[in-house]
């Protein structure tokens, strides 16, 4: 009997799990390569502190999607390497452990001490946890990086590993989910950092922008071969592609995912980051001519337009950054919704 077994809980989990993986990936990457750069420390810190939550919420949803939620422990009584779900369960367990520890390492020691000072006497034994693990950050980042990639890619492997659903049964789904997850992590960081009241210089976003533009570009160049290969594949695959080419998910896929969730934020971010990409310039906030050091490009813009509006010329606005980030996140939810539902509707004839 044909039914859609995996529904909104699974869609939410796939999104939230990917989001955590993306946050951790960006945070850990920044931490490993930042060389003591302090603005980047903020990216790593916010990413680390956000990373464990979505995946923990997502895993709770997963558990409640089971027949009986309390049976979930049976997943951890077995390890079956042939089952992507078994591999994924264990991976999630370790990833959550590492990301929680990594986040703990980023809690400022004053905050940590304040929390432990408020412990009731009965819970005094928890004082054993009151230690400074900030020196582990780098090691945890390096250990967690492959795990975060694993968590992001496994959600796609889970779907792709069944030969009975031609819509899913290609490695491109795993890659699509991977880059969608990583760009989702970037987007949420751009959104949160942009919205924070902290004094934040716009140029500090440049690494996030470059990462997000790269991930979105890769995502686009995975969607394209997905269709080319699919159309050149066997009948069952071509049939399954009809679901997004003239079928029930067509508008959702092309207008809302490809258009609004991928190409539009890509265009916004490229436009915003263009000076950086083309001229090796830096994002320049509102500054005086005198403080704009060497880069010839920036100076020539100032020469063209006068001294008043260098930042406008160098395109940066929090509004556009937030809009692009929200669109990326919406695209991330949509692509998972479309793939989960359309995949289960596809079948070998």
């Amino acid at each position, binding site marked *: 009997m044909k039914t859609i077994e995996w529904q909104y809980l699974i869609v939410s989990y796939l999104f939230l799990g990917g989001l955590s993986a993306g946050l951790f990936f960006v945070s850990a990457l920044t931490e490993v390569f930042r060389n003591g750069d302090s603005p980047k420390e903020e990216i790593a810190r916010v990413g680390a502190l956000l990373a464990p939550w979505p995946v923990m919420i997502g895993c709770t949803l997963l558990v409640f999607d089971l027949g009986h939620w309390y049976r979930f422990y049976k*997943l951890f009584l*077995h390890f079956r390497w042939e*089952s992507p779900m078994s591999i994924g369960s264990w991976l999630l367990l370790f990833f959550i452990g590492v990301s929680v520890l990594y986040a703990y390492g980023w809690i400022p020691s004053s905050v940590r001490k304040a929390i432990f000072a408020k412990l009731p006497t009965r819970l005094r034994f928890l004082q054993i946890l009151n230690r400074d693990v900030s020196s582990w950050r780098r090691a945890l980042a390096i250990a967690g990086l492959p795990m975060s990639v694993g968590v992001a890619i496994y959600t796609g492997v889970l779907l792709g590993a069944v030969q*009975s659903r031609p819509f899913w049964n290609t490695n491109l789904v795993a890659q699509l989910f991977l880059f969608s997850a990583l760009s989702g992590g970037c987007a949420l960081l751009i959104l949160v950092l942009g919205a924070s009241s902290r004094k934040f210089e716009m140029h500090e976003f440049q690494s996030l922008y470059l990462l997000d533009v790269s991930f979105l570009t890769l995502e686009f160049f995975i969607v394209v071969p997905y269709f080319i290969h699919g159309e050149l594949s066997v009948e069952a695959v071509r049939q399954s592609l009809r679901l997004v080419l003239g079928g029930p998910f067509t508008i959702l896929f092309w207008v809302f995912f490809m258009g609004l969730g991928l190409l539009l934020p890509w265009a916004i971010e490229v436009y915003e980051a263009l000076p950086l990409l083309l001229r090796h310039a830096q994002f320049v906030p509102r500054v005086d001519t005198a403080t704009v050091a060497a880069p010839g490009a920036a100076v020539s813009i100032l020469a063209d337009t006068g001294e008043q509006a260098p930042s406008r010329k160098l395109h940066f606005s929090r509004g556009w950054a937030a809009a692009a980030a929200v669109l990326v996140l919406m695209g991330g939810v949509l692509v998972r919704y479309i793939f989960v539902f359309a995949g289960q509707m596809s079948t070998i004839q």
Partner: protein
Amino acid sequence: MTNRPKRYALAIDAKKCIDCKACVVACRAENGVPLGKSRNWINEELRGDWPRLMEVFEPEQCHHCEEPACVRVCPTGASYKRSDGVVAINPSECVGCRYCMIACPYDARFFREDLGVVEKCDLCARRLDRGELPACVETCPSKVRIFGDLNDPTSEIHQILEKRQYRVKKREAGTGPNIYYLL
């Protein structure tokens, strides 16, 4: 007689099927299948153009594949293949993730919301262990179903598959289905 492992399979002579659904009812009674779900079913297909029409009936259930996709994807090993070829589910290990239902090319599985586990045809494994036939085979009034051990050269199914042409469904899924539809 060599002590070869059994390899149970089902041959279906669909031309004899009259769509009486006695097999579905017998299965429901034998296995306590709740209404609205079914371990076996009869596909109906209308062929030809008016006025030359033909209705074709084709019973189907779990194909007890050689390399079952459901068994491969099961995260706990609750879905397993018995040594006699029957693909079965151990309900006490099933967590109800329903990955197997998605992996099955034949959509032969269903979810028991009341028990929180997945169920499907197990060729009446309890009856097989007692030396009886599956309920659907025993009850079929028009003798559509031929059940037996493919590894036993004297069995009816072995002999009939030697003589008659047959097809299996969705061979391209690569799971090696064990329901043989006689042509």
